[in-house]
């Protein structure tokens, strides 16, 4: 399997109290655990099971993902620009591996 690659699309500048859009995607097969290999063995589940967005270390949005989330899970959500700082995006995979990205936001 290819290494999961996270990507986000977020503005770098926002006005105070502006609502801004975040697009977050991670390339990931999202193996459901429901499929079988040609020998008839169950292919073990391996999905991204959690996503969280922290804004200056405060969790401002989160998702619990289950098997029915599409491959390469894409999540579009909306945050309020409260102050300048660091946005952190964290994806958690079955087995405990995490993938993260950070983004600097300037609120003027």
């Amino acid at each position, binding site marked *: 399997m290819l290494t999961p690659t996270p990507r986000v699309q977020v503005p770098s500048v926002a006005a105070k109290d502006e609502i801004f859009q975040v697009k977050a995607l991670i390339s990931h097969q999202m193996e459901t655990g429901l499929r079988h290999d040609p020998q008839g063995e169950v292919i073990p589940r391996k999905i991204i099971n959690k996503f969280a967005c922290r804004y200056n270390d405060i969790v401002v949005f989160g998702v619990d*993902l289950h098997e029915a989330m599409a491959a390469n899970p894409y999540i579009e959500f909306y945050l309020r620009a409260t102050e300048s700082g660091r946005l952190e995006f964290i994806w958690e995979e079955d087995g405990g591996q995490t993938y993260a990205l950070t983004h600097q936001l300037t609120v003027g």
Partner: protein
Amino acid sequence: MAAETKTASITRRAVLTAAAAAGAGFAGGVFTSSADASDSDDGVAIVRQLTRKTPVESDRVHLVMPSKFPNGYTVPLSLEIDSPMTEADHVRQVRVFAPRNPLIEVARFHFVPQRSESRVSTRIRLAEPQYVLAVAEMNDGALLMTKTWVEVATNGCA
């Protein structure tokens, strides 16, 4: 038809095995109730079974999905709940269920008052044509729900 039945039973077994392996009591409950829940298109009854609370159908919950979609692997879903998202009146979380999927729960979105809008878009898998349910839990504990019919041409869960 026979092949279809066989696939369904293998899937069910895999599901039960996974539930046992996870050893999660609550998850196990959800899995075992799936057979009953999927036999009915009554959204309120399904949600009551999954959450042990009675939801009310509400026009504050907007679930937008295509009524017909060619494949079940990546069906667009948009959700919006009418809410001021203040400390006194906000959406805590929204759960999405696909009762005719082998595993009913699709996702749970957590919102934070003053910080995030109660609005999200994503893409999900659907095994067959069905009602997709969205259940919003408000800060006072009330469950508001809506459902929308989605027709898919191929099984996105196989």
